[in-house]
């Protein structure tokens, strides 16, 4: 449903941020885009709804090529919503409800429809009751939720989140991943950029690894986290649980090439090992 073909983009003649990226995301996927700081994740994201126009390559959404005239941009921006890393960059209106209403109003919907969507979106992210609040009186986690509501209210098919967990406290991170999982279950395709690997296996069914503007790996979390060479090149680590089991193997436990990625998998594996001995 979302396809990027050989995307190249330079900020200036000396620095090419994307060096030919191709990737494909299917409907209903929950994708994690891994890569260290400056790998080109944000740049890639800004191509997905036509904020940046690539030097070379194309973006396809639902099989349709992204065009850069005003009318098609509006259409594609409704389909692909971007939640920016810093909610302060995104939330601009003096009250929460006005900010959430901004997208739907730009789509030219009727006022009643917009009101309904605002109520629904705020309810969905658990921010009902904050309609009249000024955004700068909210906490970081709450701002993030409002930013997500602002995108949800446009009813996108694909939601792109740039490092959504950055700056959140642990409970905020957990709440956010629960919310994103729910949204995904409701049929929204989600793409997340991150370098926090521990949570990735909990939500993602597909992982891309971006290094210096090039895609060096793609596959399920299991596949990616069993390739140390890719992780090393991307300055990433395996999830802490996986690390534990790899070290246990060095101590003489045979893992048969199967390393758990999440706490749940690890629990199962432990119980199995304990029962065996």
């Amino acid at each position, binding site marked *: 449903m979302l396809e990027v073909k050989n995307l190249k983009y330079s900020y200036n003649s000396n620095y090419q941020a994307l060096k030919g990226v191709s990737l494909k995301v299917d409907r209903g996927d929950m994708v994690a885009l891994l890569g260290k700081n400056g790998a080109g994740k944000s740049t890639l994201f800004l191509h997905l709804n036509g*904020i940046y126009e690539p030097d070379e390559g194309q973006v396809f959404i639902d099989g349709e090529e992204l065009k850069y005239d005003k009318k098609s941009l509006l259409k594609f921006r409704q389909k692909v919503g971007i939640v*920016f890393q810093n909610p302060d*960059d995104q939330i601009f209106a003096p009250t929460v409800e006005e900010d959430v209403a*901004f997208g739907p*109003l730009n*789509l030219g919907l009727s006022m009643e429809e*917009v*009101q309904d969507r*605002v109520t629904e979106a705020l309810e969905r992210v658990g921010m009902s009751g904050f309609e009249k609040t000024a955004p700068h009186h909210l906490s970081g986690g709450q701002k993030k939720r409002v930013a997500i509501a602002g995108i949800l209210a446009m009813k996108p098919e694909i939601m792109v989140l740039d490092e959504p967990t950055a700056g959140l406290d642990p409970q905020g991170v957990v709440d956010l991943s629960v919310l994103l999982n729910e949204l995904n279950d409701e049929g929204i395709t989600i793409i997340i950029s991150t370098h926090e690997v521990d949570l990735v296996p909990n939500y993602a069914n597909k992982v891309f690894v971006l290094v210096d503007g090039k895609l060096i790996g793609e596959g399920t979390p299991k596949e990616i986290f069993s390739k140390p060479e890719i992780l090393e090149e991307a300055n990433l680590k395996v999830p802490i649980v996986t690390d534990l089991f790899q070290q246990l193997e060095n101590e003489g436990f045979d893992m048969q090439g199967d390393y758990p990625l999440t706490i749940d998998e690890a629990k199962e594996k432990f119980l199995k090992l304990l029962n065996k001995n």
Partner: protein
Amino acid sequence: MKFDMDYIAHHNELSEFNPYIKLFITIITLVVTLVLDNLYFDVIIFVIMSVVILTIAKINYKSYLKFLSLPMAFLVITCLFLLFFFGKGQVIYETGLWGIVVTEGSLHYCVYTFMRVMGCLPCLGFLALTTPIAKVLHCLGTLKVPKIVIEIGLLMYNTIFIFLNEIDTMQKAQETRLGYHSYTTSFKSLGALASTIFLRSLDKSETLQFALDSRGYSGELPVYEPKKED
């Protein structure tokens, strides 16, 4: 205590009171005070509006004094200038310096200006301290104030807090490294702060533009009408 006017505007007994009436009262009292130009009336309006702000809106008196003190430096400087350098008429006091004198006219000028400002301040305060900016802007919108003015106000309102936050953080970071230890370092630090904040503002404005565009911004901010509460 930190003086946060925006917080006060959102949290007082008159926050939810009809903003049109508040705007109307403010404009009328301002105009009357300016037109009448009467010392007694200035005092009366000062007392009445202060009482309204302190007892009806129930705004903390410390915050109110802080609000009044903000423009005081300008007011005092202006009045001193008026006293010594303007006006004609009989000389009532000679300073003995370069022929600078206080005349009847300048004294009159000085006192009247001072009282007029003191009368107008609580009128403005009545609006500024009890009404969230968003509501004021909405009122102005329905009163056919040009859209561009309101849009600029709207965008400024939110970004100003981010801006102030940024300055605050940077200043603390500089202070931590003794950036304001002496006069020379203070000047240097302040200069660095100003130039960095300028560059960062440019950066932020670009990101804000991207974020607005992402949500289908067409160059005009649409106006949202919240659901009527039943």
